[in-house]
């Protein structure tokens, strides 16, 4: 923060007022937006009233008022709310808080299903656990794509193709050979990695925009093939009756030999949901673990160097071909794992689920989170996927609100939510991340 440039009075005021407006929005959502009332007509029944208009009014009033105070009254070029960083621990907001945040999120993720069960009961918590599973799937996909886009700097717009390969690998292997989920999971990963290499070869010499176009086309090719190869993939009808995963051989079924009877529990469909939750949680953690380990190894450092400067990499004797291919293959492998999880969770897949929009969402998660940041991906996935569900209230305006949030994030934090990069190696003890805001892209 030391090198913050002095903004002009107007810009500083707008920023400060926006900050106030956002805080107001967060508070007003709960305090003004929701109102519990007693309905007179329907007996003494409690019901919830939404007052989004009042929230909007509160936000506008705070913004306008704060702006006016800044411009006409305080006339300071460093409005108080911009100096909040002085109260935060030294070393910048991102490194200090993100490690606390990391463990807080991890702890929350571990206890989440049981907390929800305790709080809302088996029936009430189901939809929230389902949503959490969806968020975790996107966290895993985001982490997988982060290897390709965030670390190696290869812009991949067709990532969903590997997700599709994973899902169809499992569905088809189960359909034609009757393989179980646990056998298919590694196979799906291997097949997706294989397709990652197939895509990697023709695009080795491409970068940036050109690479993006080719990967986009590749994603569409996979989808169109799945759509038209009717005899094999079922085309637009998709594949149904995909077997569910078992817990060390125990099926989640009613009656003898099922999970519930084995552990002496009453049968409930929530068991499988909770199992799926912990399954994707473990898979996502595995993705993160592998990525973090690789980052500290020569191959991971080579990926990052490749993102920074390909010519310099070659001048240092790094084989850029294998470096790129491993990034594509590993990223694709994790998408393959996530894909087979998706297939087993849904029990039904069709090419419909693997459109370009999916690639765009995953990429948006990675970019909003801050390219290369693991915790950033988590936050962005929660905001994007969770927010998408949360804003159901807005109905047709949902996409509008959603788009505005994305624009605001990108204006506010142009390099994503967590933009500092933690060095992969440090000799001295006082090593600290330096915010990327202080470094111009690609130049000194």
């Amino acid at each position, binding site marked *: 923060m030391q090198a913050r440039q002095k903004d002009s009075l107007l810009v500083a005021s707008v920023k400060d007022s926006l900050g106030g407006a956002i805080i107001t929005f967060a508070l007003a959502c709960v305090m003004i937006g929701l109102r519990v009332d007693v309905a007179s007509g329907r007996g003494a029944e409690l019901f919830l009233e939404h007052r989004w208009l009042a929230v909007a009014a509160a936000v506008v009033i705070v913004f306008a008022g704060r702006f006016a105070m800044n411009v006409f009254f305080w006339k300071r070029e460093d409005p108080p709310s911009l100096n909040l960083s002085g109260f935060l621990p030294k070393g910048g907001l991102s490194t200090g808080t993100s490690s606390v945040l990391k463990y807080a999120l991890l702890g929350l993720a571990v206890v989440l299903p049981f907390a929800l069960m305790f709080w809302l009961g088996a029936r009430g918590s189901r939809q929230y656990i389902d949503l959490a599973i969806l968020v975790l799937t996107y966290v895993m996909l985001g982490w997988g794509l982060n290897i390709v886009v965030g670390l190696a700097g290869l812009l991949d717009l067709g990532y969903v193709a590997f997700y599709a390969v994973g899902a169809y690998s499992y569905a088809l292997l189960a359909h034609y050979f009757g393989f179980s989920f646990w056998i298919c999971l590694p196979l799906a990963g291997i097949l997706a990695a294989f397709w990652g290499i197939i895509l990697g070869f023709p695009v080795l010499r491409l970068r940036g925009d050109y690479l993006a176009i080719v990967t986009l086309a590749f994603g569409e090719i996979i989808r169109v093939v799945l759509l038209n190869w009717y005899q094999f993939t079922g085309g637009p009808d998709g594949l149904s009756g995909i077997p569910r995963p078992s817990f060390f051989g125990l099926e989640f079924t009613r009656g003898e030999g099922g999970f519930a009877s084995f552990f002496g529990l009453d049968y409930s469909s929530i068991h499988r949901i909770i199992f799926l939750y912990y399954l994707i949680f473990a898979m996502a953690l595995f993705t993160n673990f592998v990525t973090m380990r690789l980052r500290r190894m*020569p191959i991971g*450092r*080579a990926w*990052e*160097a490749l*993102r*920074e*400067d390909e*010519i*310099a*990499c*070659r*001048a*240092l*004797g*790094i*084989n*850029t071909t294998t470096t790129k291919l491993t990034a594509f293959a590993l990223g694709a492998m994790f998408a393959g794992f996530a894909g087979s999880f998706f297939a087993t969770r849904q029990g039904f897949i069709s090419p419909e689920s693997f459109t370009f929009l999916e690639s765009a969402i995953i990429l948006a998660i990675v970019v909003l989170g801050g390219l290369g940041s693991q915790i950033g991906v988590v936050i962005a996935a929660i905001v994007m996927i969770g927010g998408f569900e949360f804003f159901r209230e807005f109905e047709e305006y949902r996409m509008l609100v959603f788009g505005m949030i994305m624009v605001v994030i990108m204006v506010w934090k142009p390099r994503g939510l967590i933009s500092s*990069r933690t*060095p*992969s*190696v*440090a*000799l*001295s003890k*006082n*090593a*600290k991340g*330096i915010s*990327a805001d*202080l*470094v*111009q*892209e*690609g*130049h*000194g």
Partner: protein
Amino acid sequence: MTTGQPLLSVRGIKTFYGKIQALHGVDLDVYEGEIVTLIGANGAGKSTLMMTVCGTPQARNGSVSYCGEDITYKPTYEIMRTGIAQSPEGRRIFPRMTVLENLMMGGMVAGNEHFEEDLRRAFELFPRLKERQQQRGGTLSGGEQQMLAIARALMSRPRLLLLDEPSLGLAPIIVAQIFDAIRELNRSDGLTVFLVEQNAYHALKLAHRGYVMVNGTITMTGTGKELLSREEVKAAYLEGGAH
């Protein structure tokens, strides 16, 4: 000094960019323990020659050999593993990685057995880098970035160091520091240096031998002192230069 088999030998190199010919049959030798410089104007083909030695682009005719082995058509990453290291034109350090990480990248192909030792040597040559080891490459000044580029190249323990315009865009005092470091590396470590420069005066003062390139052909060669005293060199490259 110029006896026996050269460490690097370039014979009749012709390099093309598409249809445009950049090098018209260049011969050049670098012997073990020498500092050899190649000077010339903008666009003469100096950097092209250096890049051809590194294998991108590859020569269409002629040969490049290193330690008696033909490396003309080897891929770049293999050439850079044979004991040749390069500090490329425009420095090309990794801006978002720290100084230490940049140096680790340099030592990657050599393995990490000698990493600590090489790091100490690099910091000895360029103490500024030691102070800034946790700083991102992109936040360094131009001179520090050039030091980092050279230090990074040294981390692979080369026998031959290729330097492409290390003085580019730097203040005279920094140029002097960098050239001192090159002289020091040559004297105490016995490192062979091939230096491409536009700053003819400094380069020829530093080098044992020099070549002058004009439009993709070598027009003159001799010891650094000889070339400095030649009228043609003075007229073309030293007029109003840094004396």
